[in-house]
C-alpha cells in the first residue's frame, strides 16, 4: 500500500511541539482517541484546526461538532426538568471492522498496521461506496474542483484531487513526527485524549475503562478506535 505523500511537521512552534508529543505506547500501538463529552464545550476549535491542518476545502469537514440538544443552539429539557446540552465531536472512527475497507472495490481505503483507516487518493475511483457503507457519515467527496479560501495550501498534506473521497487520517503526517493529532492539542478544555489502545495502563485506556467509554453506533459492530466518555453531570439549571 502506498502511504500518502506527507511533509514532516516543521511549521509548529517549539511550544506546541513540546506538549504535542505522543506519550508512552506499547510495542505495537493501535492508535485511538477518547472524547470526553463532559469536558467538550462545543467550541469547534478542533473542527477548524482540522480544516487548516489538513487543507480541507470549502464545504467539507473531516471533523465536526454535533449538538445533543433540541437544535443546534437549543438545549433540551432533561428528565428532571432542567436544561441540558452536550456535544458530540464526530470524525472518522477508525473502525477495526471498517465497513468502508470491506466495500472499497479497489482497496483504496485500507488499514495501516497501527489501525488507522487510510484513503489512497491516487487509487480512489470515486465510486463513493465507502460513503454508503460508513454508518457515521464522516467521508467527504470532492464533487467539484476543491475550493479554498486562500490561494495557499495549508497544513502538511498534499491536496486531494477532484472526484475522490477524503476523510480524517488522525493526522498521520503528525504521527510520523511523533506528534499528537491537531484536534487533540488544540482542544482548549483537553476533551480529546490521544493514545494507544494496546497500552493498557496508558491514560486513554484507563479513562475508557474507568469511565466506561462507549462506542458510537456500537450495534453496527464496527469496533471504532475512537471512544466517547458520556457526560456524568446532570445539574439542573
Amino acid at each position, binding site marked *: 500500500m502506498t502511504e500518502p505523500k506527507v511533509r514532516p511537521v516543521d511549521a509548529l512552534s517549539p511550544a506546541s511541539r513540546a506538549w504535542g508529543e505522543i506519550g508512552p505506547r506499547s510495542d505495537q500501538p493501535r492508535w485511538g482517541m477518547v472524547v470526553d463529552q463532559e469536558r467538550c464545550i462545543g467550541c469547534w476549535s478542533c473542527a477548524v484546526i482540522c480544516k487548516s491542518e489538513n487543507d480541507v*476545502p*470549502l*464545504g*467539507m*469537514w473531516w471533523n*465536526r461538532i*454535533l*449538538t*445533543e*440538544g433540541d*437544535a*443546534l443552539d437549543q438545549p433540551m429539557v432533561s428528565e428532571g426538568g432542567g436544561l441540558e446540552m452536550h456535544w*458530540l465531536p*464526530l470524525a472518522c472512527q477508525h473502525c477495526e471492522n471498517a*465497513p468502508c475497507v*470491506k*466495500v*472499497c*472495490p*479497489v*482497496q*483504496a481505503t485500507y488499514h495501516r498496521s497501527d489501525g488507522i483507516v487510510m484513503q489512497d487518493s491516487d*487509487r*480512489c*475511483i*470515486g*465510486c*463513493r*461506496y465507502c*460513503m*454508503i*457503507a*460508513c*454508518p*457515521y*457519515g464522516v*467521508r*467527504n*467527496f*470532492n*464533487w*467539484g*474542483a476543491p*475550493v479554498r479560501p486562500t490561494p495557499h495550501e495549508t497544513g502538511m498534506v498534499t491536496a486531494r*484531487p*477532484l*472526484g*475522490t*473521497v477524503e476523510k480524517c487520517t488522525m493526522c498521520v503526517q503528525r504521527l510520523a513526527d511523533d506528534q499528537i493529532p491537531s484536534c487533540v492539542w488544540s482542544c482548549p478544555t483537553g476533551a480529546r485524549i490521544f493514545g494507544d489502545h494496546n497500552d493498557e495502563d496508558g491514560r486513554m485506556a484507563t479513562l475508557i475503562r474507568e469511565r466506561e467509554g462507549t462506542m*458510537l*453506533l456500537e450495534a*453496527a*459492530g464496527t469496533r471504532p478506535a475512537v471512544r466517547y466518555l458520556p457526560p456524568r453531570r446532570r445539574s439542573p439549571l
Partner: protein
Amino acid sequence: MSAANPVVPSVPAIPAAGEATKHPSRRGLQVAWIVTLLALMAMGIGAFAYQYANGLVVTGMRNVVMWGQYILFFMFFVGLSAGGLIVASAGRLFGVKAFKPITRLAVLEATVAVILAATFILPDLGRPERVLNIPLYFNITSPMIWDIAIVMVYMAMSASYVWLYARADLARRGSWLALGTGTSERTMAREERAKGAMAWIALPAAILLHSITAWIFGLQISRGFWYSSIMAPMFIASALVSGLGLVILLALLLRRLGRLSFRDDLVALLGGLLGMFVVVEAFLILAEYLTALYPGAPEGAAAARMLSGPYLPLFLFEVVVGLGVPFLILAIRPLRRRPAWVALASAIGIVGIFVHRLNLVQNGLSFPNIELPPGLPVGVPQDGSSFAESYFYVPTAIEWMVVIGIIAGGALLFTAAVAYLPMQEPEAH
C-alpha cells in the same frame, strides 16, 4: 392454451430483414429514428464531457445522498435484463413452448439491457479514467466487485445466447457471423442441445446477477432501509415485473413493425404471468414494511418516513399506481385478452418499479444515521451553512442528458440487432 397446437402467425408472412426498408414512408421514419438516436447520444456524450471536466458537482448528488440517477438506472437496467432472461430461460428449461416466439427477443433485450447497466457505472465514477483500477486492485470482499464480475460473465453469456439463437439463420444467409457453423442436421441437433444447456446456465446466472446487485445495497448495515434479507428476493420480483413488462412491450412493438408474429393468446398468457409477478412484488413490500414498522423502533424510521411528507406521494405511486393498477388490468380477464391493455399494464408496471427503486435510493440515503444538528457537510461551498441534516435529491438536467444519451445508445444497438438478426424463432424443433 395448449402448447401442442402450432401457433398460427397473425401476420401472413414475416418480411426478411431489410425488406421493410423498401417501403418509402417507412424508410423515412427509420432514418428519422436513427438520426434522433444519434443526436440524443451526442447530447449524452456532450453532457458526460461537461460532467467529466467539472466533476460530479454538476449532478444533484451531495455528501448526504451520494448515489443517485446513475446507480438508479444501473440497477433498473440490471433488473430489466435479469427479468427478461429469467422468463425466457425458465420457459426453455421447463419446456413452456408457448414462450418460444418471444425467446429471441427476450435474450436480445437482456443482452442490450445489461450492456446499458454496465455503461451507467461509468458516469457515476468520480474518476472514470481510473476504471482499470478495478481489475488491477480488486477487493474480493466488496459486493461491487462481485457484481462487476457477474455482470461481465452474464454479458458474455447473454451475448453468446443471442448468437446461438441467430446462428442458423446467419449460416443460411452465409454470414461470417455464423463463425463457420452450418445448418446440417447434426449441427442443428447440437445447437438444440446447446440452447437447452444454456438455459441451465442462464437462469441461475440471471437470478445471481440481480441478487448480487441487491446485495450491493442489502449488505450495508449503515443503511437501515436497505439492510434486510428481503432485498435480494425483492430485487428479483422487481426484475420480473419490469423485465417481463419490457419484453411484452417490445414484442408488441416488433409485431406491429412486422418483425415478429405471435397470437394474442401469448400476450394474455404473458400478461397473466406479469400479474402474478406484480402480486409477488406487492407481497414482499408488505412483508418488508410490516416487519419494519411493527416494533415501532428506530430501525423502522426510514419505512415510517416513506408513509409521510414528501415521500408519501412517491410511495403511493409505487404501490397504488405501480402495482395496483397493473394488477387490476391483468386480473380482469377481458382486459388481459386485449394486447393494448396488457401493454398499458406493462408500461405502468415498469414505471412503478422505477419509482420503487427511486424510493429505495432516495429514502435509504436522505437521512444520516446520527440525526443531530448541524448534520453532514454537503461537500461543496454554498451560501449559508455548509451542513445539511437531510437532503432531498433531485437529478439535474446534466444527469438526465447523460441517462437519455446512454438509453439512446441502447435503443440504437437494439434497433441494429433487430434489423440484422431474424427475431422469429422457427416453430418446428
